[in-house]
């Protein structure tokens, strides 16, 4: 297990002690901050205009956070690929992959170590996003349960995108190719459910509804925690990790 920890520590140092992570964090905050401030400003204006009226649906969760988390999700859906593209592709490009293959680590352990790194770096970006509601809570009382549910959902979804990116990273030594393919796959995975709008037969309607990620994510952002959705996302994540492990094993026969 020490080998797995060694690999995790090395890669985390690479991300956090070089400008890699900070560039990503900079881009994220650059995009998130104005939108959050705008949404929050609009929310306050609406609250003031509706003072004394029926404002029961006008909550921080419904008017600010769910939209904000949706935006974070979309940006991470793109940026997460720039993290995962390095995980295995760069090892191949720099010829350090052979060091991993000849170390006393199984393919599963290598995949696990790389996945943990990808997830921690992505989770760090989610943590930065989490600071927005935390800062808001310093100015007033907010309901934490739906906030935590939204961010938990965000973590589960980014965990899936990391697994997809890692799988793509295992099949190419080109970092750019890994980014582009992972982006296409992740976007494809997200928009696959939209097929329900063009499907005609009952079979395909049911199929697209089942694999549609959008309602699962919306549940999370509205503070609804459904085990069914969680199991589905986790199963997909495990599937992509298992495929990565198989791809690594297959590469040893070539």
């Amino acid at each position: 297990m020490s080998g797995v920890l060694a690999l995790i520590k090395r890669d985390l140092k690479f991300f956090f002690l070089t400008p890699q992570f900070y560039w990503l964090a900079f881009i994220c905050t650059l995009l998130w901050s104005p939108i959050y401030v705008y949404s929050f400003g609009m929310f306050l204006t609406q609250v003031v205009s509706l003072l004394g009226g029926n404002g029961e649906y006008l909550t921080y969760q419904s008017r600010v956070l769910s939209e904000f988390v949706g935006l974070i999700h979309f940006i991470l859906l793109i940026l997460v690929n720039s993290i995962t593209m390095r995980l295995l592709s760069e090892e191949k490009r720099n010829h350090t992959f052979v060091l991993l293959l000849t170390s006393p680590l199984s393919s599963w352990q290598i995949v696990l170590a790389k996945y943990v790194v990808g997830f921690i770096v992505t989770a760090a970006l989610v943590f930065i996003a989490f600071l927005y509601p935390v800062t808001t809570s310093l100015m007033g009382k907010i309901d934490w349960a739906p906030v935590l549910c939204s961010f938990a959902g965000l973590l589960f979804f980014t965990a899936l995108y990391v697994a997809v990116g890692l799988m793509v990273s295992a099949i190419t030594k080109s970092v750019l190719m890994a980014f582009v393919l992972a982006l296409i796959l992740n976007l494809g995975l997200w928009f696959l459910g939209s097929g329900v709008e063009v499907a005609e037969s009952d079979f395909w309607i049911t199929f697209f509804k089942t694999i549609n990620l959008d309602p699962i994510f919306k549940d999370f952002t509205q503070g609804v925690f459904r085990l069914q959705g969680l199991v589905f996302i986790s199963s997909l994540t495990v599937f992509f990790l298992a495929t990565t492990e198989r791809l690594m094993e297959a590469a040893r026969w070539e």
Partner: protein
Amino acid sequence: MLRVENLHFNYGPRKVLDGLSFTVSKGKLVGFLGPNGAGKTTTMNLITGACYASDGEVFINQISMRKNPLEAKKHIGFLPEHAPLYQDMIVEDYLTFVCELKGVPREKWQAYVSEAIEKTRLGEVQGRLITRLSKGFRQRVALAQALVHKPALIVLDEPTVGFDPQQVSEFKKLLRSLRSEHTVMWSTHILADVEDTCDEVILIRNGQIITQGVPSQLQRAAGGVKELILAVKHPSEDFQKKLSEVHGVDSVRFLQDKQRYQITYSADTVSDAVLELAAASKVGVLHLESDRKDLESLFLELTK
């Protein structure tokens, strides 16, 4: 120490290795030779567990690479053709990382890293980023990673590429010193290096072993006996008889057309003895030429 049994590796329809078998004893420094495309790198990848064989077995210290790869890999240090270096790391940190990766207990990291740095003479650059090092130093760091965890077997795939002559000489010296603790398998194209450094040579072609043995044995096996050509002013049968009685001389043949003796021998001191005899016999030495077949000739001959 290392046992390779009937190793096969297919790349699509092409047989890269075709029933390769050999053994290497503990503490030997073995040169692994073969022309380009012979299967040297593939063999090394299979020995180190980087790739899986289509068939056959590799045993390191009696541990099967197929059945127990994680345990077998603990006993191997590998320097592949392209040095596996993390350019963003400091030399010392990189070697510590390799120790941890290879499962060395934490309390030994510092001692092992210091020893590897000392052996490979990296002291002056141990605190520097790998990316800032010269090619020679980078190759030394790569060598240090192959031996830092004190593996029983060190496999080196063309490690002297990019070295200047002085570095090659130092490297050979280092390899010789490693024999006391490790078994070393070294693939190279510089045959002279193998000839004066290695205890054994394994020669492969088209994925099959052509020959294995100590360099001098191989020369004899391929008809590569040492030969002297001696031209004299006054040849005689008596002188020819005296020549054949010199210690170490295997045979003497008189070449009528050019008034020369062709002397085949096995002992290295023969040329001095032949010169002394020629002076004492007053035959008038015109010319003495050594026609010794070296490993290069043998390599070319056997890999035709």
